[in-house]
């Protein structure tokens, strides 16, 4: 069936099977491969994007459910060749090791900071409950989000 949605500010219309997940739609139909498939069962958070502004796990949303919605992926974070402050903070604070979880971490960090511009360490840890880093690099991920909050609040 035909769906139309806005991804990173651009409208796309595609004819798809109802069983296609939003992750697959982004990766295979729009070539936006920054959104990763990890567990594929809504446990790990590697596939996190925002849907109408809210962080969601795109592996557990059918593309047809997102019909008419606005989606932002990791590719939509940088603007005019400048990294988003969250991305810059991850770079600065070594918030990634292998990098596989990073797109999901950045997208959920955006959600945390949207609701709370000065999150405590505990707030950040609570917000990251649905995102796994199998390198176990959580300390620097938390530092990165704290750093990003400082930059954004300046």
């Amino acid at each position, binding site marked *: 069936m035909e769906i139309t949605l806005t991804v990173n500010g651009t409208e796309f219309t595609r004819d798809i099977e109802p069983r296609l997940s939003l992750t697959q739609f982004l990766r295979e139909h729009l070539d936006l491969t920054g959104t990763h498939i990890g567990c594929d069962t809504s446990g790990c958070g590697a596939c996190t994007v925002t*849907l109408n502004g809210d962080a*969601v796990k795109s592996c*557990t949303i059918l593309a047809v459910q997102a019909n008419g919605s606005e989606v932002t992926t990791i590719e939509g974070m940088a603007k005019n060749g400048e990294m988003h402050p969250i991305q810059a903070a991850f770079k600065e604070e070594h918030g990634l090791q292998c990098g596989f979880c990073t797109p999901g971490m950045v997208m959920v960090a955006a959600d945390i900071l949207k609701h709370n511009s000065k999150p405590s360490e505990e707030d950040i840890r609570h917000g990251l409950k649905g995102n796994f880093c199998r390198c176990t690099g959580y300390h620097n991920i938390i530092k990165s989000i704290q750093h990003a909050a400082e930059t954004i609040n300046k």
Partner: protein
Amino acid sequence: MIPAKFDYIKASSVNEAVNLLDEHGFDAKILSGGHSLIPAMKLRLNRPEILIDISGISGLNTIEETGSEVIIGANCTHTQIVNSEVIYKNVNILKQAAETVGDVQVRNRGTIGGSLAHADPSADYPAVVLACEAKIEVEGKKGKRTIDAKDFFVGIFTTALEDDELITAVRFPKVAHGNYQKFYQSASRFAVVGVAVVHDGSGVKVGVTGVADTPYRATAVEKAYKNNNDSDAAEHAVDGVEVMEDHFADAEYRTHLAKVMVKRALEA
């Protein structure tokens, strides 16, 4: 992982959804947030031939307060429940439970109606609806009916819903004093054990999830508490219950956790 093929229809009214359910019977499934159904379909544990998406039906995602009740539309997400001032003030125990569901992304999509209809034996809300004596509003081909929480959960992943029925709302009586305690399965964040305690004028009502294949009222605890008014009543947490075993907790450990969680909830 990709689900088996299905047809997708976005229903624009409860009536349309009911007619589709009636037409397709067991082959159809209701889709709202999809956070229980879609993973089950990916694992091919569930292979409906038609999905009826009710997420766009107006009037199913509101939270209303009446004199004695709070009425929550079936499509309300866990995040809506966590953020609702009406629930915070009048059914705080439900907010406490909603906050423990999954993670922020899951809470942004999963719904109260979906969770109840799915009837996962380790889901959080069943303990709360039992302790609160909530009423589940459903609609089917024969019209509307109200199911008491105690009659709703029939077995593992099984409810009193007929094939042509869907949940439209959940009605909670206002609760002044209630507490939800949970021992998390640390990866999935489902309840290994979840306990809801509601204090009313004369005693307590205790709902337990995660312990048996069906959530239950711990009536032995309620009786012991009434007689002695102390939290040692928690020793009766699994009286008359066949305790579930899995790779997260064997029966002995789960029994211990149930007693500890009941005690904590009674003392909170």
